[in-house]
């Protein structure tokens, strides 16, 4: 038995210690927001927050999580009352197929919790591990900027590259 604290609630989990958190969230706790994408920690669809940091739940065994605060997208808001960041994703229509979005939001939430007013460069660097196959990254960036109440950066003319 391992006790996990998810979105403030404690759960006694009967599973092997090496079971990935993602499987436990989905199969034991019916928290289906986090998605299975690659299973290798390389796409970010499974991203959740542990102790304030965005992590890949597909490669994080539950044995390392006892006593730590796990936060999933279900802990942010509801359909009726979305969180400010979820609201910004809706307002910017940042989702196309939507598969990556729960992971995107959780990674962005970890950034905004630590730094409510990130620069564009900080947002881009922080979001780099999460992929969107539909290619809505530009809208995702806009949504995060909106939640951070940052204006879109001025569009600069493309710089010619020197060798």
């Amino acid at each position, binding site marked *: 038995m391992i006790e996990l604290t998810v979105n403030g609630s404690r759960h006694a989990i009967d599973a092997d210690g*090496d079971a990935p958190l993602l499987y436990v969230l989905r199969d034991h706790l019916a928290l289906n927001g986090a998605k299975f994408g690659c*299973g*290798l*920690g390389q796409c970010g669809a499974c991203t959740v927050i542990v*102790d304030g940091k965005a992590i890949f739940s597909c490669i*994080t*065994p539950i*044995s390392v999580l006892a006593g730590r605060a796990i936060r999933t997208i279900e802990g942010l808001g509801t359909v009726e009352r979305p969180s400010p960041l979820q609201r910004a994703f809706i307002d910017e229509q940042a989702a196309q197929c939507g598969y990556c979005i729960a992971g995107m939001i959780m990674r962005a939430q970890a950034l905004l919790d630590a730094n409510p007013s990130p620069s564009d460069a900080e947002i881009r660097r922080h979001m780099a*591990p999460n992929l969107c196959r539909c290619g809505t990254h530009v809208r995702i960036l806009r949504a995060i900027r909106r939640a951070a109440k940052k204006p879109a950066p001025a569009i600069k003319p493309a710089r010619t590259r*020197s060798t």
Partner: protein
Amino acid sequence: MTAGLAHRLSIPALLGVILLGCAETPTTTAQTPAKPAFDAARIAKGAQLSAIGDCRVCHTADGGRDFGGGRALPTPFGTIHSTNITPDDETGIGRYTVDDFRRALHEGVARDGHRLYPVFPYDHFTRVTDDDVDALYAFVMTREPVKARAPRNHVTFPANVRPLLAAWNLLYLDDRRFTPNPAQTPEWNRGAYLVEGLAHCGACHTPRNGAGAEKKDARFAGGDAEGWEAPGLIAASPAPIEWTADALFRYLRDGFDREHGLAAGPMAPVVDGLANVPEADVRAIATYLASLPQGQRAVAASATIAAAAKREFDPVARHAPDRATEAGAHAAEDEDAGELIFAGACATCHFEGVGPPDPKPVPLALSTAVNAKRPRNALRIVVEGLHPRAGEAGAIMPGFAGALTDRQIVAVVEYMRARFSDAPRWSDVAATLSFLDKGNAP
């Protein structure tokens, strides 16, 4: 630095050298010359030499413009910032004549006469021919000028007294140009010229003495590079399989060799540079390095590979600890914490089963980091992961900094060492991690 110098020099001698140092480096007062014209072939040659010399790596800040300088380089004497080597008149080297440039590379003296710190490896560039230095000059002087002044250095006394470097040079600088060895092939000589000169491999891979000079009697025995361990080369390499010229070539050209591992940390930009230089030069470097004394490896490469395959993590055959009693369960928990973490967090990729990723990572039993003398590189890779450069294909490993606590990182690294390496256990994993956590880079 104090200890190193004091042992060798009396105070009056030291003062003499300081005065000498002040006196012998006049500013070149010539007016800024009109920018000379360079032909394309010369610039192209300079570009390749610059890639072999990794100028861009140190002379570009994170997120900064190429060659604009300002990168913070940690040294035991403080943090030194690289300079702007673009041809900007005010903040770069726009006013350098070719003679100023030669003096900087061959003597470690800037145009205004101040002495450069040996973190700029002029102690290697002394080997480089005037002709190659001139080609480098043609290359850097035709870059786009960048206006950027490097941040102030934070260097401790007495290293902050630049004229003292005259003494350093007297003691440690070998200012002779490279002389070919007629008994060796032209390829070997080319490799020796590049390795000892522009490529300055020893700057990281050779340990340094108290004054920050490379130890001549411990060449390529392993050193430090920006908070990473620069492993010993060839005989001193911790890799279980010896480095042949072919393996070195693959590693230096592609950044990856199946029997040794992946270029990571500060070595990653080095192999990036070598991907675009003439293949013959990379071959030459490999040939020269492989000709150094190989030392003894008890086991043949094929047997080592077979043994490594046997050690591979098998999720099915994991031993089941006796958790019948509470005490036993606790003991098993501690003992198995590393294995449990490895099974859940690492084995997804790090075992030779079917399925992704493709290609598989290097078997950990062959990995240089896992077999290294110190745990630093293994820890850094677990904490930070491995990331290809933006927009480029390359091996990916996620960092586990947020997912694992420090104790768990220590447990899994200790487990990996015990399971995959015959080398003695590391005793200082936790201490090294807390050292790295504090942002230290000795």
